[in-house]
């Protein structure tokens, strides 16, 4: 079956080509050997160009994206001797028996001129020896090749798994860097593989808790400028920052409602930290918890009816949920394992609660509790894991981690089969937030 996709739209991406500053070193921990076996062969380059192979061969990006999705067992490129131009050249016996992969991706990049190229690729079922899919992208800007690598990764992911891939998503995270004797705090946005890093906010005072809006156009965060906490909103298209709440006491832990019309947040203006919702249009505040305990970290369930949060009302932090349709009913406790459970995050399908958990050794890790079976599973182990954020397809968890004393960003699949750690240029990174799927 031939699928021809013609895209000659001008895409507004300010990242440059593939080898744009390598901002992230991926330290590979545990790949998913139980994943779908696939090999992405180095692409053929046809035509004249001054650029070298590394800058154009998007098979590198596709291999990395499929690997990082945690769902594929990606054949190592060092084992592949050369690219394959035509299906006729495929040594099926090798791929089936020696390499033991089921699916082969071969591709061509045809240079048109110094700015443009075509991409064509085939997905081949090694067992039936049939071409399963053909993709053609014509008249692409070479500077957009990185995006097309991710686009192809997403198409392959959806093709094999029936679920949207996240190669074209972004992350926001916080960094702290020394500037002489001072600290500079930054809110950074990057592609979910760490490339195309941009600084969105810089501050001399701490920043906290960045969260993407459901439409992907805004980020809400906490600022400590002028010795006071405030919740602020960054509008990404304009770069404008507006103040959302500036009340006495704590203004913190903001979270978006599924439709983006409301926020849940924490205010201590009435004595102790409590959960409120704020209608962004009317700016009306509604108080949800009324205890003298610590109630914090609200997170909206995708059913739009329940808000999960962290509360100290049973002694130490545990996760509770409140029913917005019955707000006078006492909140219901959700976690019972261990003496510290916090930072609740609910998967998009509503079935999994991901959280920060302190295990019996006193180590903080990321755990997942099935809201269907009530089983809890610990997913990670390092010096100190925190700030979980879910991928928009619910299959992957990104979190703050510390390895050998250095703060980094960790990733683990929700079934625990795949782990990875990202180190960035910054020596201190924290509190990642995963964007929704891109609209484009």
């Amino acid at each position: 079956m031939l699928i021809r996709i013609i895209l000659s739209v001008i895409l507004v991406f300010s990242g440059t080509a593939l080898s744009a500053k390598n901002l992230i070193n991926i330290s590979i921990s545990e790949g998913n050997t139980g994943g779908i076996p696939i090999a992405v062969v180095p692409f053929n380059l046809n035509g004249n160009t001054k650029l070298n192979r590394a800058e154009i061969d998007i098979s590198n990006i596709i291999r990395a994206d499929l690997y990082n999705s945690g769902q594929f067992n990606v054949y190592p490129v060092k084992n592949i001797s050369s690219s394959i131009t035509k299906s006729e050249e495929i040594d099926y016996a090798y791929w089936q028996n020696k390499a033991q992969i089921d699916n082969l991706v071969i591709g061509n990049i045809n240079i048109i001129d110094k700015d443009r190229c075509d991409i064509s690729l085939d997905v081949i079922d090694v067992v039936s020896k049939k071409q399963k899919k053909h993709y053609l992208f014509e008249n692409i800007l070479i500077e957009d090749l990185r995006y097309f690598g991710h686009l192809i990764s997403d198409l392959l992911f959806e093709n094999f798994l029936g679920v949207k891939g996240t190669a074209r998503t972004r992350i926001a995270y916080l960094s702290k860097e020394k500037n002489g004797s001072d600290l500079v705090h930054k809110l950074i946005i990057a592609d979910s593989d760490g490339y195309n890093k941009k600084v969105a906010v810089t501050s001399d005072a701490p920043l906290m808790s960045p969260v993407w809006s459901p439409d992907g156009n805004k980020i809400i965060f906490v600022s400590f400028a002028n010795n006071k906490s405030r919740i602020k909103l960054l509008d990404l298209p304009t770069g404008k920052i507006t103040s959302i709440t500036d009340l006495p006491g704590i203004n913190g832990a903001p979270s978006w409602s599924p439709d983006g019309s409301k926020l849940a947040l924490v205010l201590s203006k009435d004595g102790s930290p409590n959960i409120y919702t704020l209608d962004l249009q009317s700016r009306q505040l509604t108080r949800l918890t009324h205890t003298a305990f610590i109630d914090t970290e609200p997170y909206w369930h995708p059913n739009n009816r329940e808000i999960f949060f962290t509360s100290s009302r049973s002694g130490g932090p545990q996760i509770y949920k409140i029913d917005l349709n019955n707000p006078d009913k006492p909140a219901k406790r959700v976690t019972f394992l261990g003496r510290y459970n916090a930072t609740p995050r609910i998967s998009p399908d509503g079935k999994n609660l991901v959280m920060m958990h302190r295990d019996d050794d006193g180590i903080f890790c990321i755990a997942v509790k099935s809201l269907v079976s009530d089983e809890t599973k610990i997913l990670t182990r390092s010096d100190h894991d925190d700030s979980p954020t879910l991928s928009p397809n619910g299959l992957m968890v990104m979190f703050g981690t510390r390895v050998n004393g250095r703060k980094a960003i960790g990733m683990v699949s929700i079934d625990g089969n795949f782990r990875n750690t990202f180190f960035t240029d910054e020596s201190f990174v924290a509190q990642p937030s995963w964007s929704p799927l891109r609209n484009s």
Partner: protein
Amino acid sequence: MFTKKIIKILSLGAVVASVLTVSGCASNKSGSSYGESGHAVSDSMRYYGQPVSVSEEQNLLKQNVYYFGFDSYQVTEDDKLSVYAHAKKLVKNPQSRVRLEGHTDERGSAEYNIALGERRAKAVANLLVSKGVSPTQIDIVSYGAEMPVDTGHDENAWEKNRRVVLVSCS
């Protein structure tokens, strides 16, 4: 301690520099008078029925950081003496203000630590108010685990970070 807080906001497309400077809290000014011999008790204060000399009072006022045990927001008995010295000064100078900054060690959830830091700052605030300071003279901010003085990952570092800092404002 002078602190200038500058916020630079960089937009994605254009650079918009908006610089806000706020003059922070001035440093403590010592102001009590004492007799010629240096250990006069003419200006003494009384805690728990015991007279305290003026120089002791100065020392108590010099202390402005109070430390806490793990998971605790109890002010120690020793620290209370210093807090009460500050209270007396604030009562004497109703125009002056303090800012209490609450902190925790790095362990646990960042936002939960904001709440814990506030508990610690409020514990100190309650002591000031109990000695007659008006709540309008007190600002409270919790930084949780976000501003450690020691970035180590052991009890040595943690105990230095569990603190409330009393910052005097003019």
